[in-house]
């Protein structure tokens, strides 16, 4: 899909999310431009994953609207939705016997025929994605042979092979060491810019998100501030994220300091 850059990809208005009329978060408002990287941060249990799951339509929204390229998300049929939004969840994949190649190829399902035969285009896309994410050496490795970091890249590759204008990732950096965390985040940034994909991800690495994202959503249950990282710092949005007697935010460096 060719979408001009700087075009608003995702527009969320007055969104309330949660389970069966008990909203977890409400009054969410944000716009994400095409090809931009957006980080969602907040304390545990605040509703970051719920937000992603709602945008992915895994669970229904309670009220408000989610529009993608001007179309309401809930009006899209299953196949169009699958060609519009791809996801990387924290769920471990069910069959550990799948090879890297097979997982990435499954990303082409929205475009394949009734029995799932890969066309020439599909095979090319899969090969290109594997090349891009440096998975060529792991192509025929089984899932159970991969490290956490490799597995995460494979799942991102699968989402990329799905070829959607919007990609959602739930805590893609959890369980990874510092080097691999940075590697994944940089990879997301590159994908967003080079393939013009809008990427939303949740993370606990606030300091890294501040450095790498185009925009950020700070879920705190009250203001749910959204904007560019430097704007959020100026608005003192992070100052009260954690109890003041434990952690203090240093606006000049964009880091948290442990209070003694």
């Amino acid at each position: 899909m060719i979408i001009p850059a700087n075009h608003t990809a995702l527009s969320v208005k007055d969104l309330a999310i949660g389970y069966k009329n008990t909203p977890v978060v409400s009054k969410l408002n944000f716009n994400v431009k095409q090809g931009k990287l957006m980080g969602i941060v907040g304390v545990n249990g605040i509703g970051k994953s719920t937000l992603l799951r709602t945008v992915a339509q895994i669970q229904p929204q309670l009220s408000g609207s989610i529009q993608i390229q001007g179309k309401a998300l809930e009006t899209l049929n299953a196949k169009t939705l699958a060609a519009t939004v791809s996801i990387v969840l924290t769920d471990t994949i069910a069959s550990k016997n799948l090879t890297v190649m097979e997982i990435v190829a499954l990303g082409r399902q929205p475009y394949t025929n009734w029995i799932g035969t890969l066309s020439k285009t599909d095979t090319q896309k899969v090969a290109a994605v594997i090349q891009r994410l440096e998975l060529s050496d792991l192509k025929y490795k089984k899932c159970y042979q991969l490290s956490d970091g490799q597995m995460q890249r494979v799942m991102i590759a699968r989402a990329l092979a799905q070829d959607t204008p919007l990609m959602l990732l739930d805590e893609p950096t959890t369980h990874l060491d510092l080097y691999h965390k940075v590697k994944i985040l940089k990879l997301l940034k590159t994908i967003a810019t080079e393939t013009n994909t809008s990427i939303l991800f949740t993370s606990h690495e606030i300091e890294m998100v501040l450095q790498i994202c185009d925009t950020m959503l700070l879920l705190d249950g009250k203001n749910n501030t959204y904007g560019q990282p430097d704007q959020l710092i100026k608005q003192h949005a992070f100052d009260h994220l954690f109890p003041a007697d434990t952690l203090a935010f240093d606006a000049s460096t964009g880091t948290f300091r442990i209070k003694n």
Partner: protein
Amino acid sequence: MKKQSTYQIAFVFLLVALFICFFLSISLGSVAIPFSDTFNSFFGGEMTNTSWQYILWNYRIPKALTAILVGSGLALSGLLMQTLFRNPLAGPFVLGISSGASLGAAIFIMGTSVFSGFAMYQFAHHMSMAIAASMGSFGVLLIVMSVAIKVKDTMTLLIIGLMFGSITAAVVSVLSYFTTAEKLKQYIYWSFGSLGNLSGGQLIILAGICCLGILLSIVSIKGLNALLLGENYAKSLGVNLKKLRYFVIIATGLLAGSITAFAGPIAFIGLAVPHLTRQIFDTTDHKILIPAVLVCGAILMLLCDTVAQLPQSANVLPINAITSIIGAPVVIWLLVRRKRMLF
């Protein structure tokens, strides 16, 4: 992808093996018929011994065909269950589908005095038997499935399936206690499993139902492959989960239900064959796995049947015991050798 040609070679080998097993099965038995005569007769020639001709066409060939249907059908339903529940230990027997069929059969055989309405259908005894057993297996499957929606943990689900097995066994015990000795014997013989009791007409019905089950599975191939990633991922790939679940449940119910109805409960084929197949075909793609388990299931069942015949002896062992004796060590061997059970 890279192994497309090796798969084709494996299929050729398996089909040859199936062919050999088929002839082995119809040649051996209480009366040994020379291979050359079997071969001749099968391809339209005359046999030197007319009683051989009779045994072959009226008894052994229908039985071998039943073995093929039973083995293929159970193996396929095992594969479907393992993918649907994403659990390598799932199978028609473990999740209580077969015990559901047993319950249906038990109620039909031993409860006819209680539910006298069924007795009206005695003229089509085996047909209504099949319907009763199928209804039993569908009932248990639907209950397990409705629990599956609430319980996300597959181990819990497996235990629930086993509990349903216990409940149905208990109900069968109660029925057995109150029934007549003759009907109890009829039920016990049914529970030994038998491949040789089907008439030509019943064989055609079983084949028809199995074909329907296979057809539903083929239609579900794409969804089943997506399901290997997990339900949420499958949904995000545009799979209609509700429809897929229904298709797979109906396919399993038709296959396992009708087979158990006609041939009795046959253990371990459904659980062991998909794992054995994965040893030969190193893939998770159901496009390859479905035909592969069908052929492997048929081969294993024919072998079990040949063993159960006790060649050169007039005795026949219960087929259900043979499949367990062969199937359980296979599962243990896989666990010990691979140290993990993957699907």
